[in-house]
């Protein structure tokens, strides 16, 4: 295997084939993270600016899942960028840049201590669909109300995003973190586990609960008429 090569390497050990290839000499200027990372290392301010544009919003959103105030979240994000730059020399590209950035951020946000210790593995138990919606033998008594067509053809996209954002904000923190990373940021389950330092199993449970709550929120708001959307927190 590659163990021998790894042992004698001084700076960059060989990486698995799946990892990205920012040191390959043939790299094209394609605007990819890997390309920008190269720019960053050579002091290209524009590359940094592009990366910041790409990830700032996601980072703030994720940070706000850990800390309560906007100001603290912004601080955490700034700290994360600085830590990322300082760690650049040691970054080997075993994870994607995004995963790495998010990992740094989660560590920072947690140590900021703005939130209580998070030692409870998986909070909130019980079925994800209210038991009252099933009959005695476990079949649907009150089946899912239809809303997909409503969402796809009749609801304004911005309203829909607002609705979903509100629903995500309302999730318990650990479910929110997993849903954000997995479904909003489109990380793989392995990457989510790496960023949040949770097991695959826990990740799945949290995802399961979070998604079910979002679905319920969509059902509540979209069933029947579009007018329901303007009620409550939408204003």
């Amino acid at each position, binding site marked *: 295997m590659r163990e021998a090569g790894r042992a004698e390497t001084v700076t960059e050990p060989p990486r698995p084939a799946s990892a990205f290839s920012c040191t390959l000499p043939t790299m094209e200027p394609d605007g990819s993270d890997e390309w920008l990372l190269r720019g960053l290392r050579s*002091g290209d*301010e524009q590359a*940094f*600016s592009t990366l*910041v*544009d790409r990830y*700032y*919003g*996601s980072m*703030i*959103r994720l940070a706000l899942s850990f800390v309560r105030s906007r100001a603290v979240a*912004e601080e955490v994000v*700034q700290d994360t*960028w*600085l830590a990322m*730059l*300082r760690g650049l020399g040691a970054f080997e590209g075993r994870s994607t840049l995004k995963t790495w950035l998010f990992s740094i951020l989660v560590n920072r946000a947690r140590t900021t201590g703005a939130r209580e210790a998070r030692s409870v593995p998986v909070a909130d138990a019980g*079925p*994800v*669909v209210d*038991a009252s919606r*099933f009959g005695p*033998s*476990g*079949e*649907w008594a009150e*089946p*899912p109300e*239809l*809303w*997909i067509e409503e*969402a*796809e053809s009749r609801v304004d*996209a911005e309203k*829909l*995003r607002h609705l*979903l*954002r509100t629903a*995500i904000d309302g999730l318990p923190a650990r479910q929110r973190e997993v*849903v954000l990373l997995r*479904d*909003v940021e*489109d990380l793989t*389950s392995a990457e989510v586990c790496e960023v949040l330092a949770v097991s*695959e199993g826990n990740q*799945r449970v949290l*995802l*399961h609960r979070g*998604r*079910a709550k*979002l*679905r319920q929120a*969509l*059902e509540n708001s979209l069933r029947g008429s579009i007018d329901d959307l303007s009620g409550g927190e939408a204003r």
Partner: protein
Amino acid sequence: MKLRFFGRQSQPLVCQQVVEMVTDYLEGALSATDRARFETHLAGCPHCTEYLAQIRETIRLAGRITPEDLSPEMRTDLTQLYRRWRSEG
């Protein structure tokens, strides 16, 4: 462990069990047996099929949430941060 949770392998699943298996199904985390039981149930149950479709739609919609833009002030702060790092050498 899964077997205890979702009932005996030989028994057909009921809706209430199916909704609890949706994420494991989508994540490819079900055993071949449970996957087959899940799909058999789905084939005969429009409500659970709709539930699964709604979860898929929920995931799709979540993927379309756009992050907020960077404020000019924050951009300036971060640019300065980069320059500071660069001068650290």
